[in-house]
């Protein structure tokens, strides 16, 4: 076979496989029953598919396929001519036939060795059946058949006459080939319009089909590489320009300084020269001075000429760069898109699978598939096949009840299996939902204990949701017996590992008696992933962002962040739980000899499945979208790398394999740690870890000490007792051209009142409330920064948050909102719509960097709030404008394209509809300048990115403030 033929053959195989794939759902639809018109349409389509296969294989001399296809085609022809009814056994044998053809095509060279006698045997009756009915009217065709040389062993269908014909048309015949037209002449005699119809369908079909070209994956990969290179080149160019800019700027500064120094020297000299004119100290000195002056002047002019050319003077430079940037990104995205494959490739196989499985299990299932058009990277689609298969099998085997059992509990006989694919937040979600019996947590617990995965005591501690998660534990399988369908030793743990290795996640949601929903979340592509760049011992590494839970910065002298030793292993307490630690540099064996402990070290908290561990690195550099390059084979044994990538400066950095590192480090995530993690989110950790700056004051000398967060205080005024005016029972202070109502704590709280009136008092004026009330304090003691655990039980009451120990003294924390509400119930009434509880808050997050977007979203969601994330201010503003009532808060990045955070804030503040929405600004740099600009624009608070605790505290605080304020 020459080169051309080989290529043709490859092409034919791919094309034939496509036909087979397309035929399957049609066959299944045929079996389900359809209107006569639909049936005809389906039969025609299947016929065309099998006919094309027959033609192609005949042309290339693959006779085994050709003959089988021919036999199948003949049966279909009888259906077309209404000589045969579609029956289940017929669909069965046709499906088996397509399978057999597939097998033959899988190894074309040995196609002839595939045995298909059973298929032929089952096809024969159909062929014979139709034949009998035809005989009376078929004088001519019989002659035609007789005339044709019968080269085939089997009878009952039209024999092949010319197996190797090149001119056989690919799709159903507009110009029918002789043998077919003979057949057509016979079978379709009663309906002469039929062939024309078929041709018409083909033509319209062709016209409607999108313009498609087959491209080799190889080529796409190369294009992908080139696009990657272009991205690199662009990054390098940007970096170089950046350097050049700063060099130019630095150079200019030097020149300017030199110039002014020369000018100054000139000036001084001039003065000296001028000053000496009157004296007779000699013309010689003057002449010399003038010479020097000339030299200086010359020097000055040289300097002026030598001023470096400014890059910014290159016309259009900036615009060009922006353009190049945009085009490069666009190109890369589009090339990436060529690797995308619709999920139909997978979903298309489901009807067949369900059909087979429901037969095996005796269950009746109705399959509903949506989202066929959703696209994913080819490699993900391929890798998804097994997990999806397993989940479907699981549903069929364990999920659905038998029809009778269903009827017994009042469900419809046939179960419903929903398989959905949809986009959400830049990810693809795949849901598999059944209305079966659900997962029984009690049974799971029992099984897990029985299998020794957890102890009975641990089982008792798990809530139902956690119990269901046990199905992911290695070695767990709920199958009471090993069945043919699922439970072949491949458990859900393997499914989860597979999904996670794709950078995805899996969730199970189940209700006993109602059903189970499994949701897979997957990235669109594996080729480019968001990652965090870290450094250890001078080397850079990329950590896939999908595995990153949070970042913790270790500072010296913070006891709560100390690294401890437990049984020789390093651990850290994170919010009260032990986190196993791995030092990246030790693990890789790259520690520098004699390196001392560094000042600030970071712990990247990474997750693998249910487990988390901390990876100690020296530095956290940046987050970046990186192009993943396959790991060279020689590095696979190292197990600690997931791939390699190329940095902006052209050097190579390794991508860390989060699971592999845990393996190498031999981390044992004990059940205790896991159980401890389970209650991790149970609340109040914020109170424990939050560091606050507090004003300490007393209402009466020797009385209780009160604390108020400084962030809530606008100012503290020292006033003379005589300045306080009384109107009825209320006290007022003239303040900033108005009058400020004052309150004394003992009037509203059960606290000690001062026994005498002092001449001077302090008035604490809170901020961020609509109707501020001044709080009268007798003594302002101190301002301290402290991390205090607020005890909410010990001292309680309206207006009191709780109590805590500061410097060894019990201190009462005030809740000014509660206090004000008690003091002025008319104004501070609960009637507002805005929510104070973070758990109910709907937050709009604007952030352009996808990494930060994902991390911040996760942080905020962890607080229980609902987050809608958008890519820039403009999108945020659009959403706000469309539905101003949909959000309780805006959290925005400052630097963003199109519309930055400040502009967004100004828009919000400038609009009557939105002015009340609180805005929290985030920045990666906590500079004062930024802060001021933000406050000027009207943000309520300003927070540094990636500080999970502070962000949470700030959001909580701002929501509470706004709540009180409204």
């Amino acid at each position, binding site marked *: 076979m020459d080169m051309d033929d080989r290529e043709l053959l490859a092409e034919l195989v791919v094309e034939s496989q496509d036909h087979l794939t397309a035929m399957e759902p049609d066959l299944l639809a045929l079996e389900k029953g359809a209107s006569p018109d639909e049936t005809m349409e389906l039969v025609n389509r299947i016929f065309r598919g099998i006919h094309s296969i027959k033609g192609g294989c005949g042309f290339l001399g693959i006779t085994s396929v050709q003959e089988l296809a021919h036999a199948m085609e003949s049966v279909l022809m009888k259906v077309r001519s209404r000589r045969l009814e579609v029956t289940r056994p017929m669909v069965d044998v046709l499906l088996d036939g397509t399978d057999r053809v597939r097998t033959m095509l899988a190894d074309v060279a040995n196609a002839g060795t595939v045995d298909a006698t059973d298929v032929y045997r089952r096809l024969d009756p159909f062929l014979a059946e139709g034949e009998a009915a035809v005989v009376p009217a078929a004088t001519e065709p019989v002659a035609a058949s007789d005339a044709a040389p019968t080269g085939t062993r089997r009878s009952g269908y039209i024999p092949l006459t010319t197996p190797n014909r090149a001119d056989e048309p690919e799709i159903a015949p507009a110009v029918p080939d002789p043998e077919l037209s003979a057949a057509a002449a016979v079978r379709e005699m009663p309906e002469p319009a039929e062939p024309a119809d078929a041709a018409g369908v083909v033509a319209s079909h062709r016209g409607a089909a999108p313009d498609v070209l087959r491209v080799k994956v190889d080529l796409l990969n190369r294009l992908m590489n080139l696009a990657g290179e272009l991205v690199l080149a662009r990054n390098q160019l940007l970096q170089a320009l950046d350097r050049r800019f700063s060099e130019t700027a630095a150079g200019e500064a030097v020149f300017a300084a030199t110039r002014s120094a020369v000018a100054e020297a000139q000036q001084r000299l001039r003065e000296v020269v001028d000053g000496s004119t009157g004296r007779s100290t000699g013309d010689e000195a003057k002449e010399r001075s003038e010479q020097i002056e000339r030299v200086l002047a010359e020097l000055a002019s040289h300097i002026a000429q030598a001023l470096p050319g400014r890059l910014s003077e290159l016309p259009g430079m900036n615009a060009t760069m922006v353009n190049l940037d945009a085009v490069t990104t666009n190109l890369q995205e589009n090339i990436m898109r060529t690797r995308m494959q619709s999920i139909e490739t997978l979903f298309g196989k489901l009807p067949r699978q369900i059909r087979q499985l429901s037969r095996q299990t005796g269950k009746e299932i109705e399959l509903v598939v949506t989202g066929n058009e959703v696209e994913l990277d080819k490699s993900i689609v391929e890798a998804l096949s097994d997990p999806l298969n397993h989940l479907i099998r699981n549903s069929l085997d364990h999920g659905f009840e038998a029809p009778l059992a269903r009827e017994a509990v009042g469900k419809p006989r046939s179960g419903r299996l929903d398989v959905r694919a949809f986009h959400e937040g830049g990810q693809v979600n795949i849901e598999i939902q059944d209305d079966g019996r659900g997962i029984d947590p009690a049974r799971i617990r029992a099984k897990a204990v029985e299998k020794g995965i957890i102890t009975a005591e641990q089982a008792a501690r798990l809530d139902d949701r956690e119990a269901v998660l046990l199905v992911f534990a290695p070695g767990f399988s709920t199958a009471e017996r090993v069945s043919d369908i699922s439970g072949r030793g491949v458990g859900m743990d393997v499914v989860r590992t597979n999904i996670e290795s794709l950078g995805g996640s899996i969730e199970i949601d189940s209700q006993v008696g109602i059903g189970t929903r499994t949701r897979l979340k997957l990235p669109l592509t594996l080729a480019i992933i968001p990652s965090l760049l870290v450094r250890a011992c001078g080397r850079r590494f990329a950590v896939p962002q999908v595995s990153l839970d949070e970042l913790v910065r270790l500072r010296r002298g913070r006891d709560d962040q100390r690294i401890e030793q437990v049984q020789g292993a390093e651990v850290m307490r994170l919010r009260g739980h032990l986190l196993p630690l791995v030092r990246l540099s030790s693990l890789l064996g*790259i520690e520098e000899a004699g390196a001392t402990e560094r000042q600030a070290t970071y712990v990247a908290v990474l997750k693998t499945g249910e487990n988390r561990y901390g990876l100690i690195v020296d530095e956290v550099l940046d987050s970046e979208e990186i192009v993943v390059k396959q790991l*060279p*084979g*020689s590095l696979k044994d190292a197990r600690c790398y997931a791939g390699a990538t190329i940095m902006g400066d052209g050097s190579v950095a390794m991508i860390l394999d989060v699971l592999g590192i845990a393996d190498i480090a031999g981390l044992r995530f004990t059940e205790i740690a896991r159980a401890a993690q389970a209650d991790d989110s149970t609340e109040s950790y914020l109170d424990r870890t939050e560091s606050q700056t507090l004003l300490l004051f007393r209402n009466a000398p020797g009385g209780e000490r009160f604390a108020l967060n400084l962030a809530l205080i606008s100012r503290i005024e020292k006033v003379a007792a005589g300045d306080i005016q009384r109107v009825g029972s209320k006290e007022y202070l003239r303040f900033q051209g108005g009058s400020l109502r004052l309150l004394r704590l003992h009037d509203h709280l059960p606290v000690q009142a001062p026994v005498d009136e002092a001449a001077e008092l302090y008035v604490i004026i809170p901020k961020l409330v609509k109707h501020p009330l001044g709080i009268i304090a007798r003594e302002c003691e101190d301002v301290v920064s402290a991390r205090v655990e607020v005890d909410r039980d010990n001292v309680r009451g309206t207006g009191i948050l709780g109590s805590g120990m500061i410097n060894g003294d019990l201190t009462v924390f005030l809740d000014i909102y509660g206090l004000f509400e008690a003091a002025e119930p008319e104004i501070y009434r609960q009637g507002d719509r805005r929510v104070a509880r973070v758990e109910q808050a709907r937050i709009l997050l604007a952030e352009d960097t996808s990494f930060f977007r994902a991390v911040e979203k996760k942080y905020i969601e962890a607080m229980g709030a609902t987050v809608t994330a958008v890519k820039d201010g403009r999108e945020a503003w659009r959403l706000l404008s469309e539905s101003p009532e949909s959000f309780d808060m805006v959290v925005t990045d400052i630097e963003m394209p199109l519309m930055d955070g400040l502009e967004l804030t100004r828009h919000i503040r400038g609009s009557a509809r939105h002015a009340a929405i609180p805005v929290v600004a985030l920045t990666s740099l906590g500079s004062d300048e930024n802060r001021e600009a933000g406050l000027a624009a009207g943000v309520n608070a300003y927070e540094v990115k990636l500080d999970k605790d502070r962000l949470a505290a700030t959001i909580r605080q701002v929501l509470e403030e706004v709540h009180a304020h409204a």
Partner: protein
Amino acid sequence: MRDQQYVSFVLDRHLLGIDILLVREIIRNVDFTPVAKAPPAVRGLLNLRGQIITVLDLGPALGLPLREIGPDSRCLILKSPAETAPLLAAGLVDEEPVGEAVGLLVDAISDVVRPGEQGVDAPPANANGIDTDHLRGVVRLEDRLLLILGLRKLIEEGLGQRGQVARV
């Protein structure tokens, strides 16, 4: 028989050569990223116009120390299987390349040697301490010996894949 040409290079105190048709290019950039936990002969990874190249030091496989990076250090980028396939088919080369993109780290590049009529002699039993297994032959130059290397086994050994042939 075609007129064989060999790229000669210096490794330690040896003058070694490989078939020029197996070499894609020679680059000066030896600024590779070292990779911890890699086989010892794998010195690191290098970015060659977007492609990740495994930089291999033939030293260990030849019983020599690892290379010191110097001003003359070079990287010989070998052709990929796709590039070599036609040559192989045409019988121009008789060594199958390994699957991954490999660059050989060498101390210095020397001349392209054309043995011509003189031809390549069979390797001696012991060539300056280098295992004959790795040699395809010897070219006697005026002042010294040029040892022609058989690459496949050497590279597989270096990549830690001896016995398990990697092919793409």
